[in-house]
């Protein structure tokens, strides 16, 4: 599978993250699955006229490639001109290159939430950049390529959302496409591969015991659950961050800070401060999506009243201050 990769209104962080793929070195991992970077702006040798000629041949259908990976939001401004990003050396808007190339791609992958839904670039009040995702404008289908776009394989844009993407999300999705193909049933309703977005960030969270007892962190660096006070959206965000570790052993929660739901359309403008949980009458507004609110409130009241001292005290410290009791064996042999 030949992969053509372009970057636009983003930070390049999804590529930087992808280079952290483990356990095998990224290039070997992909090469052995039959995947090669036909051209990648951060990695390939060819630059200048040589690169432009190759891209022009691809855009005209004279040079075959399989997958188009785009990293970064599509900047249509100012006034529809695309001049907020003219591809260097070409004088043409990157949005125009993407449209021309997408026509010839078997698969089109949006790498990262910017590319999928617009991300931070689409977030300035009034959206002066006229930024959008490849096939979405935040939650609304459309975007640069339009809601009806289908690649040669018959699929909409595959949204590997995340800010940034986990290396495994990109590598596994590309390998699934290369080895078995992808079907509409492999994607959720906003185009994300279920292989990483089929569950919630909450699943496997190392703070789960604190969550169960609603033993909440009150300030940054506390060990407790970050949902009640510090803005955590792990119970609503679709991704496997706490099952598929980042950088060996990490995740946002393991790093001590809130999940800001960076795989969700529109995560960048939550309508409240990122590190603060909005509440109504003392109860968080953003409760788990598939649980009646009354149940949650009842359960929370019950579990709070049953919280062991160890969990209650550790929740508001940055290291365990009470250790689990070691059960002594009683009675004779």
């Amino acid at each position, binding site marked *: 599978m030949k992969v053509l990769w372009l970057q636009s209104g983003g930070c390049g*962080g999804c590529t930087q993250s992808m280079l952290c793929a483990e356990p095998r070195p990224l290039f*070997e991992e992909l090469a052995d699955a039959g995947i090669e970077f036909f051209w990648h702006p951060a990695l390939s040798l060819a630059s200048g006229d040589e690169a432009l000629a190759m891209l022009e041949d691809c855009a005209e259908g004279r040079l075959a490639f399989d997958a188009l990976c785009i990293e970064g939001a599509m900047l249509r401004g100012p006034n529809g001109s695309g001049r907020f990003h003219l*591809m260097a050396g070409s004088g043409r808007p990157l949005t125009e290159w993407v449209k021309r190339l997408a026509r010839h791609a078997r698969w089109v992958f949006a790498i990262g939430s910017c590319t999928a839904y617009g991300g931070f670039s689409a977030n*300035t009040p009034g959206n002066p950049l006229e930024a959008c995702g490849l096939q979405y404008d935040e939650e609304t289908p459309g975007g640069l390529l339009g809601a009806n776009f289908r690649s040669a394989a018959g699929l909409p844009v595959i949204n590997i959302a995340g800010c940034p993407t986990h290396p495994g999300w990109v590598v596994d999705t590309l390998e699934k496409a290369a080895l078995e193909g992808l079907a509409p049933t492999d994607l959720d309703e906003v185009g994300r591969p279920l292989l990483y977005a089929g569950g919630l960030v909450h699943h496997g969270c190392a703070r789960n015991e604190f969550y169960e007892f609603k033993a909440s962190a009150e300030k940054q660096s506390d060990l407790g659950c970050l949902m009640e006070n510090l803005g955590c959206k792990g119970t609503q965000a679709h991704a496997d961050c706490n099952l598929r570790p980042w950088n060996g052993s*990490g995740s946002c929660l393991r790093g*001590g800070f809130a999940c800001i739901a960076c795989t969700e359309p529109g995560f960048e403008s939550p309508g409240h401060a990122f590190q603060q949980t909005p509440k109504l009458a003392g109860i968080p507004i953003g409760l788990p999506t598939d649980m009646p609110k009354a149940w949650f409130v009842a359960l929370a009241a019950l579990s709070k009243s049953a919280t062991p001292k160890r969990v209650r005290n550790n929740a508001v410290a940055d290291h365990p201050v009470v250790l689990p009791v070691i059960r002594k064996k009683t009675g004779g042999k």
Partner: protein
Amino acid sequence: MTRILVGPFNRVEGDLEISLDLEQGRVRSAYVNSPLFRGFEQILVGRAPLDALAIVPRICGICSVAQSAAAASALADAMGIAPTANGILSRHLITATENLADHLTHFYLFFMPDFARPAYAGYGWHGAVARRFAAIKGDAAAEVLPARAGFFRLMGFLAGRWPHSLAIQPGGSTRAIGAGERIRLLALLREFRSFLEKRLFGDSLANFGRLASKEELLAWAAGRPADFPAFLQAAVDLGLDRVGRAGDSFLSAGAYGLFPAGVWQDGTISDLDPIAIDEDSSSAWLAAGRARHPAQGETVVDADKPGAYTWCKAPRYGGQTCEVGALARQLVAAHPLALDLVRRDGASVMARVLARMLELARVLPAMATWVQALQPGEPFCAHGEMPDEGSGTGLVEAARGSLGHWLSIKRGQIDRYQIIAPTTWNFSPRDANGQPGPLEQALIGLPAVPDALPTIQHVVRSFDPCMVCTVH
């Protein structure tokens, strides 16, 4: 005179285009264009002040935690708090991990592949260098990617993940490190040191860090079977020790309590006075008035401005251009080898690359001492109140050089946010006085005919540009 357009410049972070006016096959003048505008300074206005910690890392996927650290410093300044002792050590460790990893990524993935180009086929070193450093396919990649990923495991412990972590806070870090984890962090540092000593230097970090002159450096490199010595051999052969000089004024905001802040000009180091920094928008597609200090700065798009050729502003120090980066840090820190190279030939391709290597050799051992100094059980994060009205400044060193954030808060919201990133300094356009930016100066006189050697490629990448930060 003819004008040529060079781009896309890949293997830089982000998109870059350069226009060159040529006379008799050489560059007479250069115009550097940062062709992507994203408008982060506007995104931040109107948000809760602490939201900056979630937003600014997304400016850049390669200097992500440097952006966090600058924002956290500016917010701490506004709040009137300082990080705890553990918090300071954690921040040093997190930013040093990113900075050293960036130096490694630059050398192996962005910079060295140009020496594998067919244009160098006639040179004695070309075969071995091409096998080792060819883009994607060279055999160094199979070793450097696991070394890099292994080193970034530090972030799994210290910052949750990389890039785009929220761990760095005004008062320190959200992630307290336990006693057992300190042992694991030390093991990761030893693993990375082993890669550097075996593959990059072919010698101990200490031996390399002690080299004090160009003669010592070249004698050390001769015949040494390792990656940086291989570069030195090619660099001297191609004269890259005397190519790429810009204005030879250098600025550093100081890093890790290890390298001091200062400005280096003609061998004299003076204190850095942040008030002397201003930004000029004359050549940018931005509304221009007089140059302004960033605390009063504005970013207003004017896409049809006559005479403009980039989205990048022109930061100046006392009206002068400055080069920032590892070489600036090592000069201000008075490292004898950096000083010797610049006194002889000015800043060059070789001196800039060498300075990054010096930082790998000098900072990695310091990281181990910071890990050992962590006090599990003592606080990692201090807490304070965010004022409804206030302002703050955060100056840090990213891998590529000085990064500054200037913010002000009104009615509990961000009222103004201005950022000067390292490549904004290095790749700045002409200012109101017509003074070209550092790269624009460094390219003058280089050969640029179609079959010329790719010297321009080396000079551009010797700055390790980060274009997504440049315009943000």
